């Protein structure tokens, strides 16, 4: 009976009073127990039935995690419907693509923003019913397709849905998941994704005593697996913050035991730790830095098994006086497992989190593999790999270093396209397997740079090294068909701002700050450091500091903040060509009719 609604039902029967969903609204935390969760779903089943959602109906769900949206998923699936998840920030074109290739008929939109985006592309797709969850600003809309969630609910009755839940099969399609990199939609049935989640729960002994905060949209397939499905499988509480601006505070208030996030979120945490300590008093800063290096030394000895008693005492002291409070400030005190997807943390950051007791566990997975193929076990000490394949999954590397996998938890391409050879799927990534069987991911296959010398490498490995500075938000390596590598650097506004304040550097905005000589030197020093660890050919010889950040709406970064090389090279073609032509000044005609000049810095 392993279906999503089935899990709701079984949780209602086994742990009816445990908190299923907790959300902050109007300043206070409200919660639904599993029993209440079930009742909400039951009403919605009636509501969506009235909208003629039935077996096989494809319902697009377009919005951020809010309780209404969460309940809708289970309700639609109880009726046998299929949920196509769409990122709330999706642009018109992405929305059209997903709606059309999924053949969705019903759209559940969060609020005015999503409804507006939909209305712009209304004529291009076959949506016949739209349900909006938050009616604010929509009362004057006259489109007859629009239905208010609240109206629907008020017209519906709470009935027993046990038999309906039992009637759906675990082989029914549950979700349509969009893979941004491949621009494809995968069908995922109830069974594989739930089984995949059970593996994670069993491996890490997750139970209904745990809690997790979900602040990313469920359309990110790894997020769907690690937060939503996992909370259903383990029965743990699923917590939703009040708004995007209050995440940090809400995380602290809840103090979850499980954390899941794509790597960029952890990078963000590191960067805010860094910029906040930068603005501390000198003595505090020095002591912090000293404690930090001391802690890292002790951690190294701990890993190599040479930890002495004095180290233990030292560590206890350092934790007590510096890092336990630091964890408290960021709401990390109770974290038992912190799962990372979509990239890995740099060694320094990985070690730091482990040293302060936040167990970072890298994972690797995509929509087609139901979000996860491999995950690191607890107390892993290597920052490079993403763990060994889970039971039921296998990984092999071909001659071109491309990663192929096999798994018993698999999705299918909606368009019926087949990219497997004898059951082996091309992951689209290059990588290797280390001696203990752990998978190491180097980057996406299509990103591989071939230098003039014929040297091939994955730019992500270099980019990650450079981006591990708290001052750098993202890096794009330019090197295709070149003698040497160049880097486009995007500085992190928060940490560079506070660094500049500390150094008494005056500036009026991001662009001016990015153009400062001091900032250039700061970045230059860092790149020089990184260069020392790189082999000769890969060393970065030139860099440009961009006068803006990369824009998600323009497709420059993915929803999980990974660099989308193709689109960047399109938008910043001036920069790319200038670097390739060895010009030292670039006139950039940027998107949104912006134009400005950039300087290429030689190292």
């Amino acid at each position, binding site marked *: 009976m392993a279906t999503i609604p089935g899990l709701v039902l079984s949780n209602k029967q086994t742990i009816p009073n445990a908190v299923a969903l907790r959300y902050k*609204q*109007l*300043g206070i935390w409200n919660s639904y127990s599993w029993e209440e969760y079930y009742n909400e779903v039951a009403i919605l089943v009636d509501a969506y039935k009235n909208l003629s959602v039935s077996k096989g109906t494809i319902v697009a769900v377009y919005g951020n995690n809010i309780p209404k949206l969460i309940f809708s998923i289970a309700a639609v699936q109880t009726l046998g419907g299929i949920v196509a998840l769409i990122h709330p920030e999706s642009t018109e074109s992405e929305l059209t693509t997903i709606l059309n290739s999924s053949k969705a008929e019903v759209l559940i939109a969060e609020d005015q923003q999503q409804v507006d985006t939909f209305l712009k592309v209304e004529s291009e797709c076959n949506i016949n019913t739209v349900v909006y969850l938050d009616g*604010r*600003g929509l*009362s*004057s809309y006259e489109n007859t397709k629009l239905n208010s969630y609240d109206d629907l609910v008020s017209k519906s009755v709470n009935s027993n849905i046990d038999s309906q839940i039992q009637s759906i099969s675990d082989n029914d399609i549950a979700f349509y998941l969009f893979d941004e990199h491949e621009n494809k939609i995968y069908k995922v049935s109830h069974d594989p994704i739930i089984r995949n989640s059970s593996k994670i729960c069993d491996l890490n002994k997750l139970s209904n005593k745990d809690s997790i905060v979900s602040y990313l949209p469920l359309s990110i397939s790894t997020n769907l697996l690690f937060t939503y499905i996992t909370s259903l499988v383990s029965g743990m509480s699923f917590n939703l913050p*009040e*708004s995007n*601006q*209050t995440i940090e*505070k809400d995380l602290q208030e809840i103090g979850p035991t499980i954390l899941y996030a794509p790597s960029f979120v952890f990078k963000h945490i590191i960067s805010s730790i860094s910029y906040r300590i930068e603005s501390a008093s000198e003595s505090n800063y020095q002591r912090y830095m000293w404690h930090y290096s001391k802690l890292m030394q002790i951690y190294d000895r701990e890993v190599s098994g040479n930890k002495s008693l004095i180290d233990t005492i030292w560590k206890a002291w350092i934790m007590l006086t510096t890092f336990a409070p630091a964890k408290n400030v960021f709401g990390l005190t109770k974290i038992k497992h912190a799962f990372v997807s979509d990239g890995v943390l740099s060694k320094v950051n990985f070690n730091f989190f482990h040293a302060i007791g936040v167990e970072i566990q890298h994972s690797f997975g995509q929509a087609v593999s139901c979000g996860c193929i491999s995950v690191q076990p607890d107390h892993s000490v290597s920052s490079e790999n993403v763990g060994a394949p889970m039971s039921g999954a296998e990984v092999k590397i071909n001659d071109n270093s491309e990663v192929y996998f096999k798994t018993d938890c698999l999705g299918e391409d909606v368009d019926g396209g087949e990219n497997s050879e004898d059951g082996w799927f091309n992951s689209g990534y290059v990588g290797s397997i280390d001696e203990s069987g752990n998978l190491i991911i180097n980057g996406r296959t299509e990103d591989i740079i071939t230098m003039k010398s014929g040297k091939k490498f994955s730019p992500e490995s270099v980019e990650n090294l450079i981006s591990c500075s708290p001052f750098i938000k993202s890096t794009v390596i330019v090197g295709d068909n070149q003698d040497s590598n160049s880097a486009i650097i995007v500085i992190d506004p928060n940490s560079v701002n506070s660094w500049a304040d500390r150094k008494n550097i005056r500036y009026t905005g991001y662009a001016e700050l990015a153009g400062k000589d001091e900032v250039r030197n700061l970045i230059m020093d860092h790149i020089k450091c990184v260069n020392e660890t790189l082999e000769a050919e890969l060393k970065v010889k030139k860099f440009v500091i961009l006068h803006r950040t990369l824009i998600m709406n323009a497709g420059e970064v993915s929803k999980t903040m990974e660099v989308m090389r193709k689109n960047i090279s399109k938008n910043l073609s001036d920069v790319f060509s200038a670097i390739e032509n060895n010009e030292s000044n670039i006139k950039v005609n940027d998107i949104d009719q912006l134009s400005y000049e950039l300087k290429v810095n030689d190292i």
Partner: protein
Amino acid sequence: MSDILKVENVTLTFGGVKAITDISFNVKEGEICAVIGPNGAGKSSMLNVINGVYLPQIGTVTYDGVERRSINPRDAAIAGMARTFQNIALFQGMTVLENIMTGRNLFMKSSWLEQGLNIGRARTEEKVNRLAVEKVIKFLQIESIRKTPVSKLPYGLQKRVELGRALVAEPKILLLDEPMAGMNLEEKADMSCFILEINKEQGITTVMIEHDMGVVMDISDHVVVLDYGKKIGDGTPSEVMSNQDVIDAYLGVSH
């Protein structure tokens, strides 16, 4: 629609200096009425006369069917007028939440003794009114600064909080004194949305002083133009735009 507010022949002087001379205009129920004019045209004074902060020497203000020579600000509030100020008049020693809570004071019926002992009505009132305040906080999207002292907020947010404080009183008519002054484009867009939404969704009549002609033309139903304390234009935005006096006195000068 009937007129909710009629200003008739109002003249206001300060120590012999005329701030407003013989101004009359009507505001219909449910509309957004913009009062525009160059600096020193008497716009703020006009608002101050309407809600009783200033007492006009001549003229009457008819609000909600009651004609008055003067009204005191408190009675105006009780009658359903709420307003914001040109130079933000938030209570600087309080947090955002407390500031907006003061907007609910007319809904608090418990005595100070009950409040001091924290019993009975005092407790439930705090809860009920907090809920109303939280709805406004959500509406204005200021959840993240709920407990921040207003003195630490940037200007644009302070304006937003002040709007919240006026809105939470559930007024019939909202008087906004330059709600968008000193804001950047994005903040202005947000503020315009809020004002429109308040007007359209909650049906609150709004009288607004504003300098930004773009905003005025976009969101108002009715425009009154003042210049040197006199009314020189009154009508729909397009009528006013084509009025020669207005073009000469105001648009011509400032553009």
